């Protein structure tokens, strides 16, 4: 009970101030028939020492990247994070504080949100950014909803090459809202099939969602896609989804390729893989759409003495003001992850981030070649960043995981489960965390599969 400061004396004194005889009296509004008579059916409390031993044992029953080189991406990329990031996130002033509702007491958090917004807008080529959403998947769904509010259309085109989990979440979000989706197929280069796109475009379409890079790691030709949209009367919005945020440092900013909204996940910026969460959803957009953005936004203002300061702003978009007419139901978001990404980006700087992206490209190209030498060639011929799909011998994809685990590696992602037409497709990724010899070994094991 070392988190509970009240001693018996305290309790007595407080009860007497209240005018109650026992603590249980305070619960008298709970009718006896719904009282928990038997107590809770959970284990007795543990000392910190026992607890830590137990959790460490559970942690040890996992094999994490680091212990094993990781060739798995598929929406979660194994990047290195400098120690300074976690050190700063461990300051209680950051991690134990609440959403900055009282700005005079929260300028540390608010200024860092403003910095995050500025950097994310720059990276994505947009004018404004929010302060985070849950993850890339729900951010993509929110972007779709945002587009449907802006363009008031009922139909949303979705690249079939968007991350399958993102598409599933999108489905969950759109299902009940009377919004239709239609998938746009990819071509042999793994990019969006522009002809199919053109024929899917109809007046009711309010937006097109496309991944950059897409789920296959392929870099889409966004300008051509944007041109296809412009050909339509009431131009649908181009919403681009980015699940590997590091790519923003080496690919043309979506905003300068015609995107109206960018949604995605910025976890790659210094945050742990963490078995899937917490991640860092975000949405950026062109200025015209400010009032339809979901989530918190921080703005610059001044205090009574004219000094610069920051506040949460445009709150009339939000649930606590607008209730059911809010732009989103989001309240608690991913504040500390946002701060971590801000620190990471400040450490990397424009040169560092660009060089890191190039290093990822180089590693991935090396892996491509190492695999090619073993007869494993890319599934698509479109350009890629740090991830690409290959074609394995028939049946090999299902055996890969075990063979690689046996060799102390974390393998790629078999595409057959999500794409019935890509049964032997296998998605692999190489970041700065894998070494040349890891790639060689990986190619060797994979090449040995029959």
């Amino acid at each position, binding site marked *: 009970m070392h988190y509970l400061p009240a001693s018996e004396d305290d309790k007595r004194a*407080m009860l007497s101030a209240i005018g109650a005889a026992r603590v249980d009296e305070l*619960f008298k509004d*709970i009718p006896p028939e719904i009282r928990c008579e038997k107590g809770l059916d959970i284990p007795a409390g543990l000392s910190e020492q026992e607890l830590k031993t137990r959790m460490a044992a559970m942690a040890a029953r996992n094999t994490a990247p680091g212990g094993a080189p990781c060739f798995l991406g598929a929406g979660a990329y194994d990047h290195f994070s400098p120690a*300074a990031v976690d050190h700063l996130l461990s300051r209680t002033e950051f991690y134990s*504080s609440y959403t900055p509702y009282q700005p*005079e007491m929260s300028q540390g958090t608010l200024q860092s949100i403003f910095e995050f917004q500025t950097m994310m807008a720059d990276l994505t080529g947009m004018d404004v950014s929010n302060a985070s959403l849950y993850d890339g998947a729900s951010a993509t769904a929110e972007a779709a909803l945002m587009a449907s509010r802006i363009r008031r259309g009922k139909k949303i085109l979705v690249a079939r090459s968007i991350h399958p989990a993102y598409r599933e979440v999108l489905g969950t979000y759109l299902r009940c809202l009377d919004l239709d989706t239609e998938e746009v197929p990819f071509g042999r280069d793994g990019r969006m099939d522009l002809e199919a796109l053109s024929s899917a475009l109809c007046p009711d379409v309010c937006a097109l969602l496309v991944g950059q890079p897409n789920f296959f790691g392929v870099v889409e030709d966004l300008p051509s896609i944007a041109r296809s949209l412009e050909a339509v009367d009431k131009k649908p919005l181009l919403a681009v989804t980015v699940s590997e945020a590091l790519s923003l440092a080496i690919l043309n900013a979506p905003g300068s390729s015609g995107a109206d909204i960018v949604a995605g996940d910025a976890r790659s910026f210094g945050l742990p893989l963490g078995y899937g969460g917490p991640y860092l959803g975000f949405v950026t957009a062109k200025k015209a759409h400010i009032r339809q953005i979901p989530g918190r936004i921080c703005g610059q203002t001044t205090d*009574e003495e004219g000094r610069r300061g920051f506040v949460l702003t445009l709150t009339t978009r939000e649930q606590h003001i607008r209730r059911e007419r809010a732009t989103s*139901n989001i309240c608690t978001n991913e504040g500390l992850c946002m701060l971590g990404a801000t620190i990471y980006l400040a450490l990397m700087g424009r*040169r560092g981030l660009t060089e890191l992206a190039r290093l990822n490209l180089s590693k991935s190209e090396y892996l491509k070649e190492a695999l090619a030498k073993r007869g494993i060639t890319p599934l698509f011929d479109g350009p890629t960043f740090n991830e690409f799909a290959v074609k394995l011998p028939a049946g090999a994809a299902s055996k890969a995981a075990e063979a690689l685990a046996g060799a102390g590696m974390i393998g790629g992602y078999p595409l057959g489960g999500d794409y019935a037409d890509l049964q032997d497709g296998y998605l692999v990724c190489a970041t700065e965390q894998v070494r040349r010899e890891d790639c060689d070994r990986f190619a060797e094991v994979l090449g040995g599969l029959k």
Partner: protein
Amino acid sequence: MSRWTEEKLLFELDHPGRRGVTLPAADVPEADPRELLGAMHREAEPARLPELSEVDVVRHFTRLSTFNYAIDFGLYPLGSCTMKYNPKINEQTARMEGFSRLHPLQPQSMSQGALELLYELQNRLCAIAGFDACSLQPAAGAQGEFTGMQLIRAYHESRNDLRKVVLIPDSAHGTNPASAHFAGYDVEEVRSSDDGRMDMDALKQRMETDVAGIMLTVPNTLGIFQENIREICDIVHAKGGQVYIDGANLNALMGMTRPGDWGADVMHINLHKTFSTPHGGGGPGAGPVVCRKHLEPFLPRPVVVKTGSGFKLDHDRPQSIGKVHAFNGNFLVLVRALTYIDTLGREGLPEASRLAVLNANYLRARLSEELEPGFKGNTLHEVVFSDRTLPEGITTMDIAKRLIDYGFHPPTVYFPLIVHGAIMVEPTETEPREELDRFVAAVKAVLEEARTDPEKVKSAPHDAYRRRLDEVTAARIPRLTWEPG
């Protein structure tokens, strides 16, 4: 130390030529991005990313941190937010590499410990709230609400019983109507009666077969327990509706009563409130959903199940509403929550609830000498005062801002909406009595100042990093990114 009075923005500190990170040397040939990416290659470096050394960056954020308040400084009495102490061991377990570095899609044979942890947490939450099944995917309370509403919808749809309306009391948190809306429902507000509880007549009158369900916060945002909650469940069920409980206030109830035993159908739990995971200046949190058997088939997939030899992610759930999160929810938040639950355990959690309620009632008793509670009845873990007794010309906001000068974070203000100028105080169980007394003294002092020196209060804060900030101009002329010059 002396206080930092100014800290520039990163972009103003930008110092070309500095480096904050050294990259590993390339052990592979350098690829040519222009050649490989062609027109899609980004030529211009992202100009807003500053060039700074590690020292510069660490100092910048360390200085910024000193402009924040923190739970480790003292009472953080935000009502409805359950700002309890965040145990340090939780931070250690969440940083164990076997958790923090796991890839969400890595083979389940390589993640048995993580799956076991998820499985245990599912069970604990079901046991604490009295439900049968659980999904750990929702990333926060609001996403839990959205998920729960979708479960209700899927349930009705599975019975071909399409309903359009969800009832929500006027005291509800803003996320409730918003979540119901995004789940495709029309929201209708049910007014509260004079005792701050749901008006039973209004409910009975409106509860028809077009109503999919009701969303109730129990205890509600006034801290009041809805005594007739079972009757409410019966009324709703009688018309085929479902009862959703917003579990944000579960901290009042652990081991005392279980929503599942009231007849409720589904509920979310804010791990970042009741189970002490830190608020992080605005997240991340986690908002798992627990439900009864009949809703289980609709839960987001996958869920963790136990097999003969271990644990696995069960994706084969044909009736599932689908995913709400790309991967396994906010896993590292879940690690913290299980750490906390297993630390307090069977006896500790109920004691935490008892003490949370004791602390709140103590504050209520002490502060009632000066302030008037919004409603008369008993309250549990929090108490809401109105601005009725404030001196002429002094607003709730003035009191809040002046408390900052006394070293306290202010309470939640102007919520719930049904109390005029609401001042909503939730101390939680981790506050020692001395700290509550210190707060009472500060409130009294501020109220005294409000009478004797109102200008001082109206122009507060005076002793914070910033004086009162102009929120109106911020919204009118939004400046949302930094521009040079």
